[in-house]
């Protein structure tokens, strides 16, 4: 069902664009990536908004109080959190639902592009089966012009051979690593906590560090067409965030170390309170989490 109905739609659109522009697979990949990112832009916007409200919620002192107060009573904790969410108008699905909708689109796009590259006999066989004959003629389509810029074949892993170097350079791999790193750094929202032991901050740091390496490995070992897609989709992602004014340039700057070289949870709490948009915390009433952090 997925491979027979969904993926071929993406394959056919990509190859239709390829035909339309006169047969350049690299440019077709760029245009199709742009098209998909534009179409899914509203989902991305609502995902960002949802994530922002969730972040507000998590930095709200009442939320932390509830967590601390009912840490031994899960049912009560869930009920109180739900009540607070309703009070603040937060929909817990608003950040993850758009992602869940985008994910299959991106997977189908990725698979459709892989199928369109048809760089192996089995892929070509499947391509001939999945092309819409009313839209595309296989005899004029194959062989695909998969030369793009310095890349001789988008269906093969990319290496740039320079005459003065004894080894080839995986230029696209380097670009994928750099753009993935930049994207993840620039898109990571400012954390309320600078505590390196904060699990969410730690997870984000790990992802920012290792995800570019993982994507780089894919770019190094898989076809150049996919690496072109990775680079371009990263750049579009950064541009989308820039348009929405959500780029977090401060993440690229070296972090100043907190006094004492080990920021306490109390300091974290203070910072969270300062960044919280709901300054309704009653004065003179220290939070329990602040005490428990000592």
């Amino acid at each position, binding site marked *: 069902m997925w*491979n027979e109905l969904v993926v071929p739609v993406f394959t056919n659109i990509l190859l239709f664009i390829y035909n339309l522009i006169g047969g350049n697979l690299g440019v077709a990949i760029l245009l199709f990536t742009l098209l998909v990112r534009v179409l899914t832009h509203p989902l991305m916007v609502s995902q960002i908004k949802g994530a922002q409200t969730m972040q507000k919620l998590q930095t709200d002192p009442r939320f932390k109080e509830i967590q601390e107060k009912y840490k031994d009573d899960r049912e009560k904790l869930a009920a109180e959190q739900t009540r607070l969410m309703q009070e603040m108008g937060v929909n817990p699905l608003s950040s993850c639902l758009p992602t869940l909708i985008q994910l299959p689109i991106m997977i189908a796009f990725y698979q459709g592009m*892989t199928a369109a590259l048809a760089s192996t006999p089995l892929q*070509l066989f499947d391509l*001939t089966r999945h092309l819409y004959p009313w839209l595309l003629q*296989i*005899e004029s389509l194959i062989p695909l012009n998969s030369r793009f810029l310095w890349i001789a074949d988008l269906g093969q892993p990319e290496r740039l051979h320079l005459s003065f170097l004894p080894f080839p350079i995986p230029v696209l791999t380097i670009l994928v690593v750099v753009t993935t790193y930049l994207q993840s750094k620039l898109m990571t929202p400012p954390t309320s906590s600078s505590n390196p032991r904060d699990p969410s901050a730690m997870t984000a740091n790990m992802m920012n560090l290792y995800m570019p390496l993982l994507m780089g490995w*894919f770019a190094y070992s*898989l076809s150049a067409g996919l690496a072109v897609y990775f680079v371009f989709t990263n750049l579009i992602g950064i541009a989308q965030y820039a348009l929405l004014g959500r780029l977090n340039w401060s993440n690229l700057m070296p972090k100043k170390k907190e006094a004492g070289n080990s920021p306490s949870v109390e300091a974290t709490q203070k910072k969270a309170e300062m960044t919280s948009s709901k300054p309704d915390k009653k004065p003179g009433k220290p939070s329990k989490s602040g005490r428990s952090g000592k």
Partner: protein
Amino acid sequence: MLKFKRVWWFLSLALLGLVLSACGRLPAVSYPGLVADGQTVYMANAQFVYAIDLNTGTEQWRYPQKAEGGRMFYAPPALAGDMLVVADYSLPGAVTGLSLSGQEMWRFNGATGHFIAAPVVTGDLILAANADYALYALSLDGSLRWKFATDGALWASPATDGQRAYLPSMDHKLYAVDLMTGKSVWTYDLGAAALFQPTLAEDGTLYITSLSNEVVALNSLDGSLKWKKAINARLWTQATLVDGKLYIGDMNGVAHILSATDGTELETIALEQDGSGVVGAPAVLQDGLVFALQKADSVRGGKLVKLSFADSRKVILFTMPEDGKFYNGPMAAADVLMIGIVNGKTPLIATNLNGNQIWSFQPAK
């Protein structure tokens, strides 16, 4: 603790990367390539070339003995007397001469693309068509005699009469190449990529199929067109010539029987009507042909259907369970029918000529 988490994250992602990239590359690249003599079948599949006892299906040897990095083999090997010629799918493409006990004798490393097509041995020449757009002519010791460049990837083996090679290319052309000089004699524009080896008749007629779903007959002397016949279905096969008739199976599961003289359609026979399509060339037996049919998309399994010469009767010889797919035709050798399987539990099964399975090959771990 922090250090441990970092290491854990790194290892997890590295493992994920390895698994995902392996998933995308190792399986489902091409189909097993087969060649056989009277006692042994040689199969190129994934990381090895196997020598398998034709009667028992037991592994005699494999080349290389241990998997070598990303080295892969799919092109059917070629027999040259007491030598087996194997060609790498992995990059850069290599052609290797092996003794019939699996010892490497020489290796040619001059190609830069995949070897998908089987090497062809004619006289003292090995013709190896590569996806780097070139046909390499090698001596039997692996030294390069000449190289012929085309404008497209070469996925099909050339046909040869000992004087010329008739080379189909993805650039839509069929090239006639002089074997002495390595120069082009004539070219013919097929109008579509050609993926299968041409069939050369004794009278010098060449029959070739292409992605335009046509069968084209050419005079091998000068490349002039004799006739062409459109088949109203997709073709993933070459034409098989038997007693003045051409047999072509299409992807709708229909066998077309054409007159080799003028291309007139003599008969069409529905081999199967469940959406299965014919893949690859049929195996030629004394009394008929055996076609491999692949089931429709997403459904695994396949069938071997025999079409008899005498009365065009069709019989389902063998039905493969829902495991793996056929992408190429069967091969017959010494009363054994063999067919390669993609993504199945076993890469090769063998039946007798009645379709009863006699063994399946399971490579040792």
